[in-house]
């Protein structure tokens, strides 16, 4: 058996063992889970370094000439993604040991994490669309479990439900896309689709629609407009979960999927639409992030924004740039989330940045790592990995002569340092603005270690091209970057950070409040209204029709007519012999008349 199978199955095994047997022994459960994550990490390391393409099959179903496999596709893309997922995953498993130390549902939590690891590896390894869809959905389910981990409180539960259903909406499009692509190319496997593509290219509009449908999956999973609403809410889950799932890996699955089908995007005329959606999401999320007060929500919107970048890159057919940004983003965003988690943990679950302040002193390690993450996110030139990947994307937009997209991206590049600086200034500088924050202490080693480990690649990883090649991450060539791009991005960074510095230095409260932005442009309200009035109204209407028309008029009506006719007809039997004789005579006359008449 190929070690890749173990990589896929070990986390599942861990989840199963925890659920079935070790739920009562929490420490054992967490150990099993962390062990499986470590094993997965090691296996994924062992897979690196070879660049041959390998496909493994396991017959899942076979009907006639259609065979659906659980298959493993090992190529550069999947190997590098695997590395990202298992590395971040392992670190977050370790971090969780500390963060969830005294949690009642620790076993459940780790089972969920393992299940997630299983699902995520499944997406990465998927060799065909069906398998990808299977794990796509499983990822959604494990996300549901993990967001709703604290299920006795209402907000996480609602958030979990929202996340799952929103994802399902995206998956609707994804599945329709799969069906369309299948009917166009005659295959479900990526290799087969690529083979069938030339024939399918004869129908560009069909292909375009199909690709857009597939993209719907990414819209759901990567929380693009208009299905982005679940991601900020998902921050109700435990912070490590936010770091792992809602920042580093799962939400990037959409991007990964687009990268996987890059050849399709190239053939479809609708790819630019994808780029636009990505760009708009990036801009929208960045704008909203500037007015959020919850530390995790700010990061969540920033994730949205960065995902928008990646999607835009994928839409611009720069899948390598998208993947590279995915890679770097996974590390620094996980770092940021874990840092935020540390802060929250230390501040007894206080998440409002305006109630924090001064943490720089009480939590120096956290501060430093958080600052590194911020720098990476803000793309401090040449120092951080974020800079290289963002440059790569901006460059792609510029070089494709798509100026509108470029300027939007540039605007986002301006907003990103703005809101991150705001966050940093408000939370870590100044003075503590609430009692728990005053008493905050630095986090234990088990939580600090992942922070440190993540800080390293956030800064350094782009420097080591050899390492990148080994991981098989596509790497930008610096010298090709257009000077204009470089200039704009540096100006944006300086402008954004400077402006934030001006506004938020030594502030105790929000200096100015833009309602629509703070309220996320009322998307939630809009959707709530849609759900309540349109869906609820339709449901009530259907129920009413079901009761009154189908059951009431049709079914009961027929019954009543039959019974009523019976009631009336039997009145013939009046009981009087005279009448009976008359009726009998009538009967005879009628019978003879009928016989004569017919």
């Amino acid at each position, binding site marked *: 058996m190929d070690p890749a199978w173990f990589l896929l199955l070990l986390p599942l095994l861990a989840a199963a063992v925890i659920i079935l047997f070790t739920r009562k022994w929490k420490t054992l459960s967490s150990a099993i889970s962390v062990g499986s994550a470590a094993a997965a990490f090691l296996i994924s390391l062992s897979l690196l370094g070879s660049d041959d393409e390998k496909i493994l099959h396991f017959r899942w179903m076979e009907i006639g000439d259609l065979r659906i496999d659980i298959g493993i596709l090992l190529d550069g893309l999947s190997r590098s993604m695997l590395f990202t997922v298992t590395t971040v995953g392992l670190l977050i498993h370790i971090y969780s040991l500390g963060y969830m130390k005294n949690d009642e549902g620790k076993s459940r939590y780790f089972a969920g994490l393992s299940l997630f690891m299983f699902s995520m590896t499944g997406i990465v390894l998927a060799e065909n669309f069906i398998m990808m869809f299977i794990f796509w959905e499983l990822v959604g389910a494990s996300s549901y479990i993990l967001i709703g981990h604290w299920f006795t409180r209402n907000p996480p539960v609602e958030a979990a439900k929202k996340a799952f259903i929103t994802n399902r909406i995206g998956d609707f499009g994804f599945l329709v896309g799969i069906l369309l692509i299948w009917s166009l190319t005659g295959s479900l496997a990526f290799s087969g689709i690529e083979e069938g593509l030339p024939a399918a290219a004869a129908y560009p509009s069909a292909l375009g629609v199909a690709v857009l449908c597939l993209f719907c999956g990414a819209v759901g999973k990567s929380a693009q407009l208009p299905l982005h609403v679940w991601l900020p809410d998902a921050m109700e889950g435990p912070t490590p979960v936010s770091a792992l799932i809602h920042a580093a890996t799962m939400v990037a699955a959409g991007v990964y999927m687009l990268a996987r089908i890059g050849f399709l995007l190239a053939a479809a005329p609708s790819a630019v639409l994808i780029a636009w959606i990505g760009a708009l999401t990036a801009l929208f999320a960045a704008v909203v992030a500037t007015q959020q007060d919850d530390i995790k929500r700010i990061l969540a919107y920033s994730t949205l924004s960065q995902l928008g970048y990646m999607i835009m890159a994928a839409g611009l057919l720069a899948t390598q740039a998208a993947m590279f940004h995915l890679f770097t983003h996974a590390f620094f965003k996980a770092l940021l989330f874990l840092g935020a988690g540390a802060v929250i943990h230390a501040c007894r679950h206080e998440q409002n940045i305006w109630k924090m302040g001064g943490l720089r002193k009480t939590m120096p390690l956290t501060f430093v790592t958080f600052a590194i993450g911020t720098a990476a996110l803000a793309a401090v030139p040449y120092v951080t990995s974020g800079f290289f990947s963002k440059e790569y994307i901006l460059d792609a937009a510029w070089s494709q002569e798509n100026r509108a997209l470029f300027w939007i991206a540039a605007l986002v590049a301006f907003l990103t340092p703005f809101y991150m600086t705001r966050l940093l200034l408000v939370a870590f500088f100044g003075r503590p603005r609430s009692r728990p924050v005053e008493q905050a202490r630095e986090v234990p080693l088990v939580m600090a270690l992942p922070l440190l480990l993540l800080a390293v690649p956030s800064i350094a990883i782009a420097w080591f091209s050899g390492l990148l090649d080994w991981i098989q991450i596509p790497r930008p060539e610096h010298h090709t970057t257009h000077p204009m791009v470089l200039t704009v991005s540096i100006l944006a960074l300086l402008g954004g950070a400077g402006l934030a510095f001006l506004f938020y230095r030594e502030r105790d409260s929000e200096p100015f409040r833009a309602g629509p932005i703070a309220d996320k442009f009322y998307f939630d309200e809009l959707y709530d209204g849609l759900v309540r009035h349109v869906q609820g109204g339709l449901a009530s209407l*259907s129920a009413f029709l079901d009761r009154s028309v189908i059951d009431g008029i049709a079914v009961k009506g027929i019954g009543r007519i039959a019974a009523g006719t019976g009631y009336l007809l039997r009145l013939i039997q009046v009981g009087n012999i005279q009448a009976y004789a008359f009726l009998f005579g009538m009967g005879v006359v009628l019978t003879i008349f009928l016989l004569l008449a017919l």
Partner: protein
Amino acid sequence: MSILDFIIFLPLAAAIAIGFGLPARRTALAAAGLNLLLGFIALARFGNHDPASGPAFAASRTVSQNPEIAWAVGLDGMSLVLLLLTVLVTFAALWQAATPKDNVRLFYISLLLISAGSLGAFLTTDLFFLYAFHELALIPTFLLIGIFGKGDRRAAAWKITIYLAAGSLVLLAGLLLLVISLGQGGVLTFDLAALAQRAAAQPIGASSQSLIYLLLLIGFGTLVSLFPLHSWAAPAYASAPTPAVMLHAGVLKKFGLYGLLRLSPLLPAGAERWLSLLLILLLGNILFVGLVTLSQKRLDSMLAHSSVMHMGYIFLGIAAFQPGHTLGATGAVLLMFAHGLSIALLFALAGRLEDKLGTLDMTKLGGLGKITPRFAFLFGLAAFASIGLPGFANFTGEILVFLGGFQSHEPGAPLGGLQIATILAVWGVVISAVYMLRAYRAIFLGELTESNATASLTDLTLSQKLPAGLLAAGLLAIGIYPWFLQRFLQF
């Protein structure tokens, strides 16, 4: 005697034995357990069977020469799957059954008869007995709901009985017309294989096919609660005692789909003629009933509606079933199996819940997951299974059905009715996620409501977990490794 005869007559014999005074519960359980075993023996021995040589374990005994009717049994892939479904659900339902205070014998006899009826219908290869055995279950259902039901049990029992009886009369007309149309040389036959041969050699005229298929569609459709012939289902399922609804919704209702799948290859022109109608009706199931499901306030009623809704997917598989395009049919059979197990599981758990709490009103429940985690876990499994989460058998069925909808689609051609219906049906998956998660959230998650906090709710014991675990295991097994059963499904 074939092993299949034993499987069919074992519950009947047990029912008679209970009638003559054997201890009711133990006899019933023993019969169900033995049948479960026999079912798996049949599965094991079926593995070596060559599908080209006709059904396995075939045996036949003529009961009427002209029209040619025979008590004939035989097992092919489709009936094997349904056999497994039946023995699994029967065992779980009987185990799960809470013995009533009164009429104990009647209770278990009725349950066994439903099981025997389903087994007979699925295992016979004679059209007459296929029809007859299904109807055998009508009376037990009437008694079970009417005597042991809850809520508005009488109205519900009354409705299901009359409705299904009426539907099966339409069905009978269709079946007879089919048999008559395929009469040859002065001999009418009810043997399915012979009918198929005759239909292949000399297809029925298009107009006759059209009439027959319509009758079959209405007849079978009523039995399967095809929109708009579905209004019997929800009240009956909401009122029926738990094991009865497990058997009925889980197993018996599959009969109509099974019959349609068996017979529609004989009527290709008819199927084509009414395809659009079927598509509209099944969308009625998925979308309209789906919306109705959304507005349900009681768990049992919601589950009942959801069961109606899910029939739409199976119908979609049947609609997609054309010669050479068998994905839909395969998916439909897998989905029958999956839906049977998952709805039985859901009803089993809902029944337990009501026993303990006395209500299934979702607005009054909440936060039970804290008190009964195992229960919540099992229910969650069932809920996720029923909304078609991968890893559960339901997903394998659904995905095949959806693929089936596109199997006949030519690349680049405009989307046909079937494809559009498939796309709309995929949207139904979203609807079912909404109501299922909403229900799960209302009952198990969130803050514990006061009324529940005081209720004497205890978590499942091992013995109570067994039937549910059995069903869940079945769902997972086929969800993870569908080839295990799917390889037997040859159309």
